[in-house]
């Protein structure tokens, strides 16, 4: 249904989606709370430069796989553009920070498509296993690699349950100012931390024509992401590991 509405304004689209999901009454309340404003391209408040990331905040994604169109990979392209993730024509060693995964139910044949990236766990196995502490979690829940101390042992890649990390297999010379990358170190989705700190939303969320990727502060009960998580069921991939993921999915 939402596929046909991509020309409609952001807020209206959300409204229509909510109406469909929650029924009219709840939608009215929801729409009122959302108010006006362009929350899809910017978050409520940009962090002052001198202020450190706060542990009050837990940044995360809520991804609605029902909205994910079959032949769409705009989130992937946006990420690749944002960080100049150019490949060398060697798919086995080229980096992928976000990828679309297609699931097909073995019994029913029902297929689902979803974008998969670093899940920004609250208890990240990559951080636990990293010998030098190069894998770390920012106070606001973003899991990053400190490339200054990464020795390229790749233990984090062994430990990650989501295969979210890539090893830089060759020399790179086209880094963006805000996205350092270099041969011999491990990298993964940064949740576009350079944008988030400026008060913008990650490139993939911004690029999604269906607004399937909702970004926000999960700890803030008034945020859109927290409200939506409170009102509908969402799942974590490999929830059995109890890693408390920063990326939640709907529709799988």
């Amino acid at each position, binding site marked *: 249904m939402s596929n046909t509405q991509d020309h409609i304004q952001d807020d209206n689209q959300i409204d229509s989606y909510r109406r469909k999901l929650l029924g009219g009454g709840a939608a009215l309340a929801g729409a009122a709370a959302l108010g006006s404003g362009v929350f899809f391209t910017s978050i409520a408040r940009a*962090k002052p*430069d*001198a*202020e*450190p*990331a706060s542990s009050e905040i837990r940044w995360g994604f809520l991804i609605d796989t029902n909205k994910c169109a079959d032949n769409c990979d705009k989130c992937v*392209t946006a990420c*690749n553009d944002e960080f*100049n*993730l*150019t*490949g*060398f*024509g060697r*798919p086995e060693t*080229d*980096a*992928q920070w976000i990828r679309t995964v297609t699931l097909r139910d073995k019994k029913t044949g029902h297929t689902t498509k979803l974008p998969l990236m670093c899940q920004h766990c609250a208890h990240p196995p990559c951080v636990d296993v990293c010998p030098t502490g190069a894998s*770390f979690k*920012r*106070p*606001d829940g973003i899991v*990053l690699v*400190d*490339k*200054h101390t990464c020795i390229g042992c790749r233990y984090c890649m062994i430990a990650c349950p989501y295969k979210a990390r890539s090893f830089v297999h060759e020399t*790179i*010379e*086209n*880094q*963006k*100012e805000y996205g*350092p*990358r*270099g*041969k011999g*170190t491990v990298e993964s989705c940064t949740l576009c*931390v350079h944008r988030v*700190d*400026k008060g913008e939303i990650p490139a993939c969320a911004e690029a999604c024509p269906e607004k399937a990727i909702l970004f926000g502060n999960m700890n803030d009960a008034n945020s859109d992401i927290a409200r939506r998580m409170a009102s509908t069921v969402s799942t974590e991939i490999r929830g059995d590991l109890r890693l408390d993921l920063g990326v939640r999915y709907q529709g799988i």
Partner: protein
Amino acid sequence: MKAKRNTQRFWLAAFIFVLFSFGVMADVPVPDIPEAVKGEQCVEETGFMRRNHMELLLHQRDDTLRKGIRTQKHSLKNCFTCHVVKGADNQPVTVKDSRHFCRECHDYAAVQVDCFQCHTSVPGGAKTTGTRP
């Protein structure tokens, strides 16, 4: 016997002369450090920067990456943005060019700069190369 001693003295004198002529009378080679394009004083006093820029950079890098503090004063980006060197095509030269701000002194002192193995070395980042995955 005496002649032999004199010969030895001659060779000794010659040796010392040769040793000192290793130093040639010429101007000392010095690095050609690019001025800041803004024509302003650096973020700290010059003598201090020459001695301690690495400490500032390390401190800034940890603050930015680990804590999310994004002040720019002591950032690497500031170094090569203020002291940008333009090539023949009027584009900023990358660290591959020996005229790059950081390389002038680092080459002179034979100290490697690791920064640019991951970071871009020109304002705004280098041009895209390679293919999309």
